[in-house]
């Protein structure tokens, strides 16, 4: 029982990332009809927003310490962050310590801008082209974005820790009456899950309860009729692209303490996120979220020792096996709508 709960918990944070990325993908597909293979790169750029803010907050001045030597035997140059100099070591250190949460404030406008520029500058030229063209151009864009990040930050992962007060793990086992250490779960992963739920809830609320959202939903259902009513639906869809980019970016920002970001991290999520979208049902926002969590938890179960010894390699194929089963039994996915990608 405790192992069962443990793997469900483990699947939740992975599922959160899948759900957030798949939600953005579905928003873009549902509004603009574009299959965006650059969406993983948006997740990665979001993560590097956190890296950038961490670097910015750590900007330092150098002083020479004659008592210590560097690797060449010269007096050591000691770096002190400006923030610690301006606000004192405690306050300055605390601001630096909270660089990841602070990066959220930076990432939102940056990611919206990146999304809008991407849509206006490149993707809009491919609306009427076949999906294969869209996939090729967005995949190419993803590789370009990757290489740009690698040029500035290198190929190695960059440590981007959570605030020190949010590190460590909670012993759920004791809370639920199991043995100590039976169900351990890191605080930051819990925060990631709650954050993902909040973002998903906000997106749904935005679409459901605002006039802007109502127009977007109407446009998703019947773009031509909405346009005939004199509404500039293209402008709203462009904004939705920006919002989808921001969702992916925020997922990336918050993911950085879980695994140190590197330029390739978007690709690691991209293919799985597409599977999530297909399983959830093309164009279905609730389907994307449901499938994200479902596949995250299934992947977690498939990685247990029991599963890998019973069926070797199951951890590497489980998502695809489930995708095949779902598509065979429900060709439109779990919550897919009739007519989407069926023309």
């Amino acid at each position, binding site marked *: 029982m405790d192992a069962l709960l443990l793997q469900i918990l483990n699947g939740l944070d992975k599922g959160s990332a899948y759900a957030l990325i798949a939600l953005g993908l579905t928003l873009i597909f549902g509004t603009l009809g574009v299959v965006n293979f650059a969406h993983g790169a948006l997740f990665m750029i979001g993560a590097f927003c956190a890296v950038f803010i961490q670097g910015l907050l750590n900007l330092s001045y150098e002083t020479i310490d004659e008592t210590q030597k560097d690797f060449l035997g010269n007096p050591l140059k000691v770096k002190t962050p400006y923030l610690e100099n301006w606000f004192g070591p405690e306050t300055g250190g605390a601001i630096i310590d909270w660089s990841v949460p602070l990066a959220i404030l930076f990432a939102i406008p940056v990611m919206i801008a990146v999304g809008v520029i991407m849509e206006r500058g490149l993707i809009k030229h491919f609306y009427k082209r076949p999906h294969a063209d869209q996939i090729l151009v967005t995949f190419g864009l993803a590789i370009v974005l990757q290489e740009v990040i690698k040029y500035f930050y290198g190929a*190695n992962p960059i440590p981007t820790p959570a605030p020190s007060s949010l590190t460590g793990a909670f012993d759920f086992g004791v809370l639920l009456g199991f043995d100590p250490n039976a169900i*351990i779960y890191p605080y930051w992963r819990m925060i990631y899950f709650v954050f993902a739920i909040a973002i998903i809830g906000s997106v749904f609320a935005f679409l459901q309860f605002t006039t802007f959202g109502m127009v977007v939903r109407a446009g998703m259902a019947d773009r031509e009729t909405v346009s005939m009513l004199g509404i500039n639906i293209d402008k709203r869809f462009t904004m939705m692209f920006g919002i989808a980019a921001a969702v992916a970016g925020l997922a990336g920002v918050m993911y950085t*303490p*879980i695994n140190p970001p590197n330029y*390739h991290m978007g690709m*690691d999520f991209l293919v799985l996120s597409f599977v999530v979208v297909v399983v959830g049902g093309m164009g279905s926002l609730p389907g994307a979220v449901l499938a994200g969590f479902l596949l995250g938890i299934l992947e977690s179960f498939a990685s247990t020792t029991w599963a890998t010894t019973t069926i070797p390699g199951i951890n590497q194929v489980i998502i695809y096996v489930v995708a095949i089963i779902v598509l065979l039994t429900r060709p439109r996915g779990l919550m897919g709508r009739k007519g989407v990608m069926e023309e």
Partner: protein
Amino acid sequence: MSKNELTRRSMLKAGVAGLATPTVFAGAAYSFTNDPQGGAVTLGFNVPQTGPYADEGADELRAYQLAVEHLNGGGDGGMINTFSSKTLDGNGILGQKVEFVTGDTQTKGDAARASAKSMIEKDGAIMITGGSSSSTAIAVQGLCQEAGIIFMAGLTHSNDTTGKDRKANGFRHFFNGYMSGAALAPVLANRYGTDRKAYHLTADYTWGWTQQESIANSTEALGWETINNVMTPLASTDFSSYIAPVLNSGADVLVLNHYGGNMVNSLTNAVQFGLRDREANGKNFEIVVPLYSRLMARGAGENVKGILGSTNWHWSLPDDGSKAFVRSFGTQYGFPPSQAAHTCYVQTLLYADAVNRAGSFNPCAVVEALEGFEFDGLGNGPTLYRADDHQCFKDVLVVQGKENPTSEFDILEVVEVTPRAQVEYPADHPMFGGAEASLGSCNPGA
């Protein structure tokens, strides 16, 4: 009719013989592949320039360029000045100027073979060196054996490289999984006691398998029990599903047989799950990383503090050779070299020196010169290139993540220099292919 037929056959036979003769003679004139012509010799540096190990590849390339500069008489000469063999005088190799070409392994076996093949066939490389992964090293070593080219391996730590997959044309300066285990186990037993239960997470490819086998054997010999070994796919990015069950598995040590990005993520995840703050079996829970790369350990940040592991070389070593190399490299590039850079630089000097001592670029002469070669002054103390398997035997470093680093490069500290005698093993050791493992014959190519 029949006379005509015979005549025609005779003509054909004569033609075939006529065509074949110059080829045979050409083979005799060029008795080995890519015999240097025109006063210059080309070396092929095959490193990961893209992909997850690109930063390590870039550091290897810096070291190679420095080695070429030193061989051609440029710079301060680096470790040429401290090398016990004195054949290198700044006049290239055998008086020929050293030039180089580079290839991108992408850390993929097929891409590494393709780039090595291109450098041999199109660029005329006489020697191939490099790599940052055992699977690519083994793949390229096999190709070089077939092509009649010397392969001086870069960073490759799998026992198989000089074990079951050893080749007469291939040489490894870097240490291996067995040596890591032999050096690390006594330190682990001393630090954590002999009554320990270890849980292994292992990267599912040649390096991971041999590393796990080595560390398990060495620790079990000192009283530890290996209670589980879970293979993790090389492409894994999140290890939480593998780490979560560790705490209630009965283990009190987690051994991460991971390298590079895998190591960074698995160690980060293990620390996130609070493993180091827990107790198991009445003892503090410990984590071990058998193979450290200082360059990549940076990615794990503060999580490496206090974690024990092993490394081939470290820039803080106080011997003259290491100091000379760090000075050359640091002055040129502004930061200290990695262990990958060190082994690549050393391999280039060793090859050049072997050619000079042999008086020939012929791969078989180079093999003869390197086999059983004893040297010093290249950063690891007295070293032997063993003839039986082409593996270097030298001291091994046990390191741990530094608690109070003074700079971004000051990540690891050496806790013990394990003497060479402690990490030696017979060439027919079962972990290295046993009695069946063979170098085969040297291939000069052409």
